[in-house]
């Protein structure tokens, strides 16, 4: 997030795109609700009629996968009606002319036809977003989990830049992180092309710094992204896989294909708190690890705030902390890193990563600090891009519509979208083990519009088979006003009805993020 969570309350206008915030980030949504109570305008772009969408000033219920035409049209309205921030564009951005030309390819009426929304609503949304000073954009996986995920994000940053809606309270471009430490995991360099603290592997000086610190030469060969690792299973270029707290055969798309890959693997080491599906079938070694309540450390939240995690209870049986396990394994591999002490690990990271150097355990004892925080006297950074974009000039991108990897057709006439519900979390290894949550939402369901249900002669709560070109699962129909005709939606939480049996191989062309958010399916009775 470029902004802080607490700032959301000060919003005058919020543009929420591809985020069912009240279910996926319920506590952050409370700040939005408060802003709404104070009169803030709310613009929602979502194929589903979410809680926020129902209450929005404008809900653009677009056809899934048409975000770029919509954002281009909005940009087009803003520019053609002269609502953009000319001073900001001139002095603090680059690429405006190209971007403007690309956007001009999407007049409102054309976009309205492609996105299947009302042209007047597009205009209204554009005018509202441009009109308010404190206007922030919030998005989540509805934007990124597409073949055009990166361009989708760019289409949003285009809007922020042409209006100058960046760099002050409640105003910026804010991805809401789906998991407790997505932010931290990236910060820590768990990325094939970035070393810790976003220092590039390609940067020789950075490599040298880490090589010196670690006493071992850091390879200059860029690593593989997750999707490339999975591909590597198939061509057998990846022989060993160390999986920490993940369950790829449940969480990765096109599960059948993933199975084929795992079968070829020589070594799978799994480290988790429960025996997950992947480990059950494929692991050679399983390390019993600890959950968040059993260890010391830090998490970094969506607003870049590093906060202390503390041990409340002992791990069960012989389970060891994740850090201890890695230290033990390192020792077994011939490298004695000494005692596994979280604060020392943090200090090593902070010393090597300038944007984090000012953060240490003593400083975050009471409350967390938001990076960038270059030195110990720095208070942390509430919002980014103050005064000007960090890179000097904000880059505007000329964008065009990119069709999804798979579109509905005569054989598979429905578009399936997937997501999270309020009561469960991802593969639900934790929440389905809670009686109350299991009872509240015990089994998989398929949200379907009344119109589609009628045409297919499907009754509410009826057992149905959802089939894609990859496979099929059994679920239960939930006739709902939330989805539009032609689109069905399923939660991703149920192993017995794993939506990833259905999802396809589409992935972002630039960073490989899978296109979980849509694939073509058909429904039939069992």
């Amino acid at each position, binding site marked *: 997030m470029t902004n802080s969570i607490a700032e959301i309350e000060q919003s005058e206008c919020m543009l929420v795109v591809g985020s069912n915030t009240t279910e996926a980030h319920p506590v952050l949504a409370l700040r939005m609700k408060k802003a709404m109570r104070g009169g803030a305008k709310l613009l929602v772009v979502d194929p589903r009629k979410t809680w926020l969408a129902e209450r929005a000033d404008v809900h653009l219920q677009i056809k899934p996968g048409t975000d770029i035409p919509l954002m281009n049209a909005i940009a087009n309205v803003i520019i053609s009606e002269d609502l953009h921030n000319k001073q900001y564009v001139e002095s603090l951005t680059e690429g405006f002319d190209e971007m403007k030309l690309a956007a001009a390819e999407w007049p409102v009426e054309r976009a309205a036809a492609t996105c299947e929304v009302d042209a007047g609503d597009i205009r209204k949304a554009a005018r509202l977003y441009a009109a308010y000073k404190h206007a922030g954009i919030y998005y989540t996986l509805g934007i990124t989990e597409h073949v055009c995920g990166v361009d989708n994000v760019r289409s949003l940053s285009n809007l922020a830049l042409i209006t100058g809606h960046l760099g002050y309270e409640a105003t910026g471009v804010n991805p809401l992180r789906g998991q407790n430490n997505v932010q931290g995991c990236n910060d820590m360099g*768990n990325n094939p092309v970035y070393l810790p603290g976003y220092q590039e592997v390609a940067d020789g000086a950075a490599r040298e710094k880490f090589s010196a610190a670690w006493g071992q030469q850091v390879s200059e060969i860029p690593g*593989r992204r997750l999707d490339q690792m999975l591909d590597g299973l198939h061509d057998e270029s990846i022989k060993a896989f160390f999986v920490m707290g993940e369950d790829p055969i449940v969480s990765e798309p096109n599960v059948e294909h993933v199975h084929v890959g795992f079968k070829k693997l020589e070594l799978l080491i799994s480290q988790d708190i429960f025996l997950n599906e992947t480990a059950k079938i494929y692991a050679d070694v399983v390390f019993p690890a600890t959950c968040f*309540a059993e260890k010391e450390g830090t998490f970094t939240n969506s607003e870049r705030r590093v*906060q202390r995690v503390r041990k409340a209870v002992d791990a*069960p049986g012989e389970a060891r902390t994740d850090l201890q396990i890695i230290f033990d394994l390192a020792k077994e591999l011939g490298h004695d890193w000494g005692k596994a002490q979280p604060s020392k690990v943090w200090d090593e990271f902070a010393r090597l990563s300038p944007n984090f150097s000012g953060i240490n355990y003593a400083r975050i004892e009471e*409350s967390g600090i938001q990076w960038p925080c270059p030195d110990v006297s720095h208070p942390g950074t509430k919002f980014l891009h103050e005064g000007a974009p960090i890179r000097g000039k904000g880059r505007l991108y000329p964008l065009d519509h990119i069709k999804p990897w798979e579109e509905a057709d005569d054989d598979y006439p429905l578009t399936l979208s997937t997501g999270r519900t*309020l009561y469960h979390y991802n593969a639900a290894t934790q929440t389905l083990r809670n009686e109350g949550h299991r009872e509240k939402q015990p089994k998989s369901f398929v949200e379907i519009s009344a119109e589609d249900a009628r045409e297919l002669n499907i009754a509410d709560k009826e057992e149905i088979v959802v089939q894609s070109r990859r496979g099929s699962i059994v679920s239960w129909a939930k006739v709902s006003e939330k989805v539009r005709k032609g689109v069905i939606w399923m939660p991703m939480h149920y192993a017995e009805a794993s939506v990833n049996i259905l999802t396809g191989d589409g992935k972002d062309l630039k960073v490989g993020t899978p296109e979980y958010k849509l694939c073509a399916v058909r429904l039939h009775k069992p």
Partner: protein
Amino acid sequence: MPTNTLTINGEQVAVLQGESLLDACAKMGISLLTACHDNRLEAYGGCRTCLVDLDGAPRPVPACKTLTSAGMVVSTSGEQLETVRATIDEMLECIPAAALETWTDANRFIGYDPQQCIMCDRCVRYCDEIMQCNALEHVGQGVDAFIQPTQGDSFLDTSCELCGGCIGTCPTDALYSKQSLKVFNEQSDAVLSSTRTVCNYCGVGCVIDIESQGNNVIDIDAQTGVGPNDGHLCSKGRFAWQFINHPQRLTKPLVRNTESGELEETSWQNALSIAATKMLDIKQRHGADSLAFLASSRCTNEDVYALQKLARAIIGTNNVHSCAAT
């Protein structure tokens, strides 16, 4: 920000416009008892425990509900005022008639004990103002009043999102966590403790307090004014903690028996040794880049830093990634 200067107990204090007498008193270090007040909610002024004398007002005013204005002269003590406040405190101890009847609700999270309820409306207002769910209502009148899920349905049938914010804001134990009650062992002499940490679900990073009895988690709560969540939690954050002490947790390392194909329990030394040997073997045979490491965005920064360091500094590959896609 414009300020107002007023006099409290003979001393002058400057406060921001829009602040209440309660805020002003707090600034002077005068702490007034409150029951119906929660900073996150609009002032209610119903419990009457924070009454103070205000010059010119016909009777004492509730400090929480009274906005400051310049020149106010306020007194927080005095025989009559203190008697009134003491009497109101005594009144709050009275168990009302409606307390004999209560609702039972099939939900497994939120319980209600009307004998503890002082009708401060905090839960109802929380659900209305903060959650905007309106899943709770204040029904009946006088001492027959009580709190119930809207329309008398089960919470499972209302718009309730089972966040338990009503429990969080309840100043008494009228609303309580059924889960906690179930696991709390009165007989046990295990140490009760509270540990401040961060929730492990979404990326908001709510600061929570884990309440534990010995090695058992018995509750999760959050404090107003702390962390990005300001005391708020969602249903998962507040209640989805049964997994921690779940019997299916892994407690021993496992290795696959090459003959039977089954995973079998083993010692740490054995598991680590097998893992390390095989890793080094594969590295030797196929090169460092034939090993891949997938970190979890559920683990701590330190955990995942160590993992990528192991991959880069010991194995020698940049094949480290996570499922972090946002």
